[in-house]
């Protein structure tokens, strides 16, 4: 109990402290210490409660009151913000939900008691671990990153205190979301993450940043409205506000309405099509923000909610709708990623696609698919945050974050290139986690006869392979080894990157254990049916064997290299090489620089066209869902 409260409140305290400290060194230290303690706290909490879990009831009225007050303050802020920036939708959304919640809180809440406000089960444990560990690593990373960031971008006003305190505030809110069983509390934390996201996207205060931040706010507030509506609907009709109670109910047509609303809220938070534009815009934020909020944790809140709702979604047509939406998101975002060359854009599209995949798995709602979904959250969080922060560092090392220029990275910082490759491998290669989950997902979907989704998966995976492999290709090609623009990676940056890289590998080795001790019990409990690991033991052995080979082969190659020294010749340039592998004698006899660029295939995968098409498609799917609901067919 205490531990959980500390976990919730400690980051809040740190946030406050950071906000007050103005000294740079002291603040950095504070962030580091705060992050380490948060991580330790996470471990402690998980250590204490992992085995049996815990359910806490809290009937403290004051908490609700505080929440209401804070909510009103936030609403006031947002409404004025909306008016000032002439985005009245923001004001309307904010006003709507707050007013509705207030009316509900004071008018209709009588008689609704929340038995257990906090539930800590195996899924919560996993989420807390992901948030706590990845989150604190990114906070440490941010210390190093922000220093470089402001060295590179003198034009931006330095607001580091603000930045770090928001980061910690966000961690606290995230813990809140995954721990809350009370929908009101969850909603509150949900709104706080929205606000944090808004504030962090707008960090640089440029026109673009402000606009994108507002866009993110609009869409997430829209999700918030849906969330609020769902809460009120549930509260009025079922007289409960507990998530755990909700998912025990029989999925009938009426229940599907709040479930659908909650799904919409989840889809907006997870930036699924057609609500995805905010996440792409959010990439203007400093990289730690993108890593923490927009890949590893905040967007996971949405899929977390869907995972929680899975038992209700699985057998129903609302579930099918959500699955289809996720499928389209997965496919089109994977395709669109091909046409991108900005590393963060690629990561953003890939995040969208992977969230889509998680949505598919979660909403398919079978034990196996849920197994895949939860594992995907873990693997994705680790790999993607590794990629984000290594891209952030790479940007500082080579001057920009265009994938085309990543071929310099091997010359500038071997280590960074290597870690980035691990991250990429983690995203799509065989023995690594993402692929394992994808595999299980496929199997689960076949078993649940979701043929269309399986086919979408097959196409999407192929596209995924293309854009990751071409990025990897840029990393392994060594251009201009004489590049002397060498920066030392600060320890603040290197340490989290290294740890995350190891986590990627370790998570692949240990997923059978995770499955054995966390997923199987959790799924057994949820479905009241014994869950088994969905992969054959022999396959796991083979996969671990592959993973070991991947680690051992480079090492075993060292003696080969030592014994086999070869004559180096210039590369083939049709006989016109000038001798330095960089230039050739071109037309008019002048030296021409050779350039090697990746393919983007705009005509096939151009983002503009596909975005429009897929948005239309997804909107149609959602409208279909609404029609189904209204028709009562759900």
């Amino acid at each position: 109990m205490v531990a959980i409260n500390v976990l919730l409140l400690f980051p809040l305290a740190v946030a406050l402290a950071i906000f007050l400290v103005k000294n740079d060194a002291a603040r950095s230290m504070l962030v580091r210490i705060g992050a380490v303690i948060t991580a330790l706290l996470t471990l402690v909490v998980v250590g204490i409660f992992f085995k049996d879990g815990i359910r806490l009831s809290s009937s403290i009225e004051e908490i609700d009151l505080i929440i209401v007050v804070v909510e009103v303050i936030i609403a006031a802020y947002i409404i004025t913000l909306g008016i000032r920036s002439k985005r009245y939708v923001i004001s309307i959304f904010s006003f709507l939900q707050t007013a509705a919640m207030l009316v509900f809180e004071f008018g209709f809440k009588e008689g609704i008691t929340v038995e257990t406000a906090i539930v800590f089960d195996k899924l919560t444990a996993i989420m807390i671990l992901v948030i706590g560990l990845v989150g604190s690593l990114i906070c440490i990373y941010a210390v190093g990153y922000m220093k470089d960031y402001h060295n590179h971008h003198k034009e931006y006003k330095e607001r580091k205190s603000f930045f770090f305190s928001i980061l910690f505030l966000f961690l606290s809110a995230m813990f809140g979301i995954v721990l809350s069983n009370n929908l009101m509390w969850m909603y509150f934390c949900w709104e706080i993450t929205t606000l944090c996201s808004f504030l962090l996207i707008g960090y640089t205060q440029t026109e673009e940043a402000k606009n994108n931040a507002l866009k993110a706010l609009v869409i997430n507030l829209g999700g918030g409205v849906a969330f609020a509506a769902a809460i009120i609907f549930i509260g009025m009709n079922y007289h409960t506000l507990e998530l755990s109670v909700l998912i025990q109910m029989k999925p009938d047509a009426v229940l599907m309405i709040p479930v659908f609303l909650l799904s919409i809220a989840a889809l907006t938070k997870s930036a699924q099509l057609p609500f995805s534009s905010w996440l792409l815009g959010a990439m203007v934020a400093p990289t730690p923000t993108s890593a923490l909020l927009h890949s590893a944790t905040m967007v996971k809140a949405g899929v977390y909610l869907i995972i929680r709702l899975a038992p209700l979604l699985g057998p129903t047509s609302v579930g099918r709708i959500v699955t289809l939406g996720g499928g389209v998101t997965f496919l089109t975002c994977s395709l669109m990623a091909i046409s991108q060359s900005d590393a963060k854009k690629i990561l953003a599209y890939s995040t969208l696609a992977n969230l889509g995949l998680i949505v598919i798995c979660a909403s398919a709602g079978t034990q196996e698919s849920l197994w895949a979904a939860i594992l995907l959250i873990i693997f994705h969080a680790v790999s993607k945050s590794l990629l984000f922060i290594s891209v952030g560092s790479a940007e500082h090392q080579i001057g920009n974050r265009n994938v085309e220029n990543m071929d310099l990275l091997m010359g500038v910082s071997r280590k960074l290139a290597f870690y980035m490759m691990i991250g990429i491998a983690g995203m799509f290669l065989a023995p690594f986690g993402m692929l394992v989950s994808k595999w299980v997902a496929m199997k689960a979907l076949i078993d649940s006869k979701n043929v269309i989704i399986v086919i979408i998966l097959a196409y999407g995976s192929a596209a995924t392979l293309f854009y990751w492999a071409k990025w990897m290709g840029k990393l392994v090609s060594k251009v201009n080894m004489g590049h002397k623009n060498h920066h030392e990676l600060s320890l603040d940056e290197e340490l989290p990157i290294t740890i995350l890289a190891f986590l990627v590998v370790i998570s692949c080795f240990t997923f059978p254990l995770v499955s054995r001790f966390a997923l199987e019990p959790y799924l057994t409990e949820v479905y009241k049916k014994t869950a088994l690991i969905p992969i054959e033991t022999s396959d796991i052995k083979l996969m671990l064997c592959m993973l070991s080979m991947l680690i051992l082969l480079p090492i075993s190659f060292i003696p080969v290299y030592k014994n086999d020294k070869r004559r180096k010749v210039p590369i083939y340039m049709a006989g016109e090489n000038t001798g330095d592998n960089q230039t050739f004698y071109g037309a008019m006899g002048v030296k021409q620089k050779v350039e090697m660029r990746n393919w983007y295939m705009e005509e096939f995968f151009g983002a503009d066209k596909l975005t429009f098409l897929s948005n239309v498609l997804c909107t149609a799917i959602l409208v279909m869902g609404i029609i189904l609901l209204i028709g009562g067919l759900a």
Partner: protein
Amino acid sequence: MNLIKIIAIIILTPLVGGLLTGFDRIISARLQGRQGPPLLQPFYDVLKLTEKESIEVNSMHRFFVYVSLVFVVFTTLIMLSGGDILLAIFALTLGSVFFVLGGYASNSPYNTIGSERELLQIMSYEPMVLLTCIGLYYAQKSFFIKDIISATKPSIIYLPGVFLGLVFVLTFKLRKSPFDLSMSHHGHQEIVKGITTEYSGKDLAVIEVTHWYEVIISLTLVYVFFATVSPISHVFAVIACLLVYLFEIIIDNSSARVKWQHALRSAWVVTGVMGTVNLLILSFF
């Protein structure tokens, strides 16, 4: 699976693959009205390559072809010992990706273009190969080849569309015209020798051997469609493999190399039509 079996697979597979390649070259020559090389020519080539000096353009690129070979061999082992077909395909993809990375690592224009094209090819055939595995799972309720080939009815009965789609994309895997964009067996291509342009000597020999393994892997995919519990069906399956191979040779010799746009589009459309329709029908029963 014991050690002897593993060693036997590792040694015999390239021998058979090499012979098939030799057979391919003779048949191709005869189709063109030529005499053609001796049957053992592929082995002579590899032998020669191992005898030659190996040169390199940088220290990185050779590593990848060896890793690629290891994973392709690994795939062969999984497949021929009756393992999980989906895992085998994933391992094969890993091998292919390493091969592509080798091309990138050479950091030379034609290799890089070759790598891009190879990636495109992987992207083109991957959905169909995955759907093949999925189809087999649908038909026989198992991903394990040993289960699939001990079914009572051959999978081809359930999966004619998937099979045709597979034969279509095998052209990519066997590097045959019209889909030999990234690296043609015939030297006269606009990107020289694609990914392999910078490789020479032993590295090139490794690539050749890798291709032999890949030929066998491709044909194994055909094989599982025909083999059943009855021993006679295995004979049919072998014949089917040879016929498919012959068919691919004829296709190779009677079509122009298409451009990537068409390769991608046609492969995805064929996958979409053949695979999807077949699976949809199957899922309703």
